[in-house]
């Protein structure tokens, strides 16, 4: 509970800092960007998304540019995850089935937060079990850390008493528009109807 409270306070401090930074940027307080050169700054809501450099199970490089052109779903998980990941993955597969041929224009990525254990072969077999159109992504620890930071994904290794470890991780599903920009999220416990509506909107948006 204490940790939670500390976390909550830390989160608020972060929010306050981001708010100040946004204000500072808008008012042109930063040096080198003198008040005269007030370029319009896009609304500085804490942005989600950004550059990343990962590979799919076949070793093909995948980065932020591959998100442009087609709407995408991103889900971060790991194959040694017994509960939330198979649930979310089968939900995603179910939505794809429900969307029918429309789903073919959707890119779905499963990003592993456990690159140490999730080798490409395991990832390929895992993703294919749910829907062969789901493309797994893997990077080095550093590449994963960079992507997680850009996408505000939390992941942490938790040792198990009997040896080995499990991962705590963000289980939110990210929606990305065909412009390559973050456009929303799906909570893994959300109802199917609301989710399908979101996905149809995502697919319909230009």
């Amino acid at each position, binding site marked *: 509970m204490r940790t939670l409270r500390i976390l909550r306070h830390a989160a608020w401090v972060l929010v306050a800092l981001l708010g100040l930074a946004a204000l500072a940027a808008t008012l042109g307080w930063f040096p080198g960007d003198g008040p005269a050169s007030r370029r319009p700054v896009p609304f500085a809501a804490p942005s989600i998304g950004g550059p990343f450099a990962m590979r799919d199970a076949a070793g093909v490089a995948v980065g932020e540019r591959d998100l442009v052109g087609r709407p995408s779903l991103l889900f971060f998980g790991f*194959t*040694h*995850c*017994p*509960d*939330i990941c*198979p*649930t979310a*993955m*089968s*939900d995603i*597969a*179910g*939505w794809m*089935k*429900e969307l029918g041929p429309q789903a073919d224009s959707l890119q779905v990525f499963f990003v592993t937060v456990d690159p140490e254990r999730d080798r490409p*072969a*395991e990832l390929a*077999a*895992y993703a*294919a*079990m*749910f829907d062969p159109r789901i493309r797994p992504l893997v990077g080095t620890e550093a590449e994963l850390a960079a992507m997680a930071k850009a996408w505000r994904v*939390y992941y942490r290794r*938790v040792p*198990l*008493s*009997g040896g*080995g470890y*499990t991962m*705590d*991780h*963000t*289980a*939110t599903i990210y929606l990305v528009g065909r412009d390559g920009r973050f456009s929303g*999220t799906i*909570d*893994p*416990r959300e*109802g*199917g*109807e609301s*989710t*399908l509506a979101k996905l149809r909107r995502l697919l319909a948006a230009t």
Partner: protein
Amino acid sequence: MTNRPGLGRIAAALLATAFLSTTFLAAGMQPARAHDYTQGDLRIGHPWTRATAPTAKVGAGYMTIANRGGVPDRLVSASTDAAGRVEIHEMSMEAGVMRMRELAGGLPLPAGADVALKPGGYHLMLMDLRAPLKQGASIPVMLVFERAGRVQVELKVEPPGGPAGGAHGHGHGAGSRAPGHNH
């Protein structure tokens, strides 16, 4: 010579009969419905697990455990030949983050309460699987309770998405995935 195939068929029929009677006998020994178990004050309902990928090393076991007695009990441990070890875990979601913790002291079963092991909550974590779990199979698991003692149950291997088989627009909080909600 000519009646050899006939003999084979008779043997096959006999074998089938023997097999079926054993199955019926075994089924007959279950006091409750097909896939429920009773031991002392505990009723264990439909233990199940999901089919795993060919390379998977972990699986999760789910069931309901009702304690009809007046005394609390506790699921202390579980084991199976199908996995190197089994742990009792609790999953929680907060602010979009999934966390999984081992219940070091086991799973408490308060008197008169129904405790569900289900996706999004408690589960048995089967670690170091010796072979992938194949849909349709049954995985024998030994459960050890503090008071009720040892109970052998079988986890039915359901599709990878669980009995609900993925989302089909039925608001699926963790609960609606419970067995019996097949559509």
